[in-house]
């Protein structure tokens, strides 16, 4: 369990981090909280020659409101996110999700940016970012660009991020008026990745669902946006019948692996159960 040797850098600015990553091309890696990367390095599933620590870059830290939107610096830890009262009022689903990630020690080091960028289908934040239609702000030596979370995930551990690029912040647009949201996760024990989990956000108008988004964790090689399931709810009255139909539509797009979390059929059905519960909680929070 000893990682392979590497050279360590602790730059103070984003341009310095980018030139360090660029100078060494493929064998250089960013490290944020290290709570996915260090375990992989111990197993030598990751053997970077150069490790660029993003932890001392002040520009990557902090949580701020910009108009109705919220911007989370990439190296904001889960613990910092949980402690932010303004964010908890505006977007309680983020705190609700962070509290379901691992345990206090992991949340003290693990970052929101690392969770979103890592690309592990078991990570909890990607589905929430799909659901909220977040945008990832990316910096590279060629300049800055923005990638929608909905266009970011290509496969297990494969994302739209190019070599040498880093995510600097995550921008979450203001939710629709009268929206409620929830993240519901089934896990076998504390600190476990989801058997299945679902994020849902919906808004109501005159007792009917006006907007809806649903996303799923760990039931396919990437987090999934359940578009048909959400579209089917527009105009419907919130309730068990409508939510059961949405759950069935969400189950249909899952492609879970059979592993220690359970066989394929079980995990697919649990994805449906998580969707129903997330929708019911979201509707209640929306005032339905």
């Amino acid at each position: 369990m000893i990682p392979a040797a590497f050279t360590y850098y602790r730059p103070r600015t984003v341009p310095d981090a980018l030139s360090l990553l660029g100078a060494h091309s493929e064998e250089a890696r960013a490290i944020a909280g290290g709570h996915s990367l260090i375990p992989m390095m111990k197993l030598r599933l990751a053997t970077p020659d150069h490790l660029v620590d993003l932890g001392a870059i002040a520009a990557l830290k902090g949580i701020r409101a910009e108009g109705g939107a919220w911007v989370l610096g990439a190296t904001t830890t889960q613990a910092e996110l949980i402690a932010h009262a303004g964010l908890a009022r505006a977007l309680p689903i983020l705190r609700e999700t962070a509290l379901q990630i691992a345990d206090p020690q992991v949340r003290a080091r693990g970052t929101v940016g690392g969770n979103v960028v890592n690309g592990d289908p078991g990570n909890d934040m990607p589905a929430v970012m799909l659901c909220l239609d977040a945008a990832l702000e990316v910096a590279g030596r060629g300049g800055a660009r923005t990638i929608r979370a909905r266009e970011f995930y290509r496969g297990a551990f494969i994302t739209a991020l190019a070599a040498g690029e880093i995510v600097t912040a995550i921008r979450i647009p203001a939710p629709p008026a009268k929206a409620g949201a929830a993240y519901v996760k089934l896990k076998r024990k504390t600190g476990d990745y989801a058997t299945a989990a679902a994020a849902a956000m919906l808004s109501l108008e005159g007792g009917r669902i006006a907007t809806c988004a649903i996303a799923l964790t760990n039931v396919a090689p990437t987090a999934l946006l359940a578009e048909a399931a959400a579209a089917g709810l527009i105009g419907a009255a919130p309730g068990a019948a409508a939510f059961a139909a949405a759950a069935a539509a969400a189950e249909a797009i899952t492609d879970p692996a059979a592993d220690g979390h359970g066989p394929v059929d079980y995990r697919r059905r649990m994805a449906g159960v998580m969707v129903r519960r997330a929708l019911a909680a979201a509707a209640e929070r929306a005032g339905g």
Partner: protein
Amino acid sequence: MAKTAISLTVNGEKVEALVEPRTLLIHFLREQLSLTGAHIGCETSHCGACTVDMDGQSVKSCTVFAVQADGADLRTIEGLAAPDGTLHALQNAFREWHGLQCGFCTPGMIMRAWRLLQENPHPSEAEIRFGIAGNLCRCTGYQNIVHAISAAAATIAGASKEAAE
């Protein structure tokens, strides 16, 4: 492999050392500083036996590189009792309440509880259980650990009330 110079504070004392970048903080503490209180249980970031306090937070020292602790303020179980050897309220409570059996999880458990009681000086039973969720114990069934942490919280609250009076 080239070594990197780090300087940090450990249990109130300045430490300067040379480390390989890949050296994990737990190995640095145990092998270079001979602070063998923090244990290596799983080495896979799950068990919390390696928990130490770093800059005001509980961390699993098997999942931090020693180079990342450059400039940090660290506290380990060795730094909990008073210099004259008087045990901390948490250490006493773990004895009183039989909060350990084999004792392997205890240094990490107590360091986590120490930080928890600063984050939340009056935790409910549920809050204690949630707060120590990153520390596994194979022996006790947790019940007496939770009792011990509650009892220590009451002792600390009583002592600070007395001091204020």
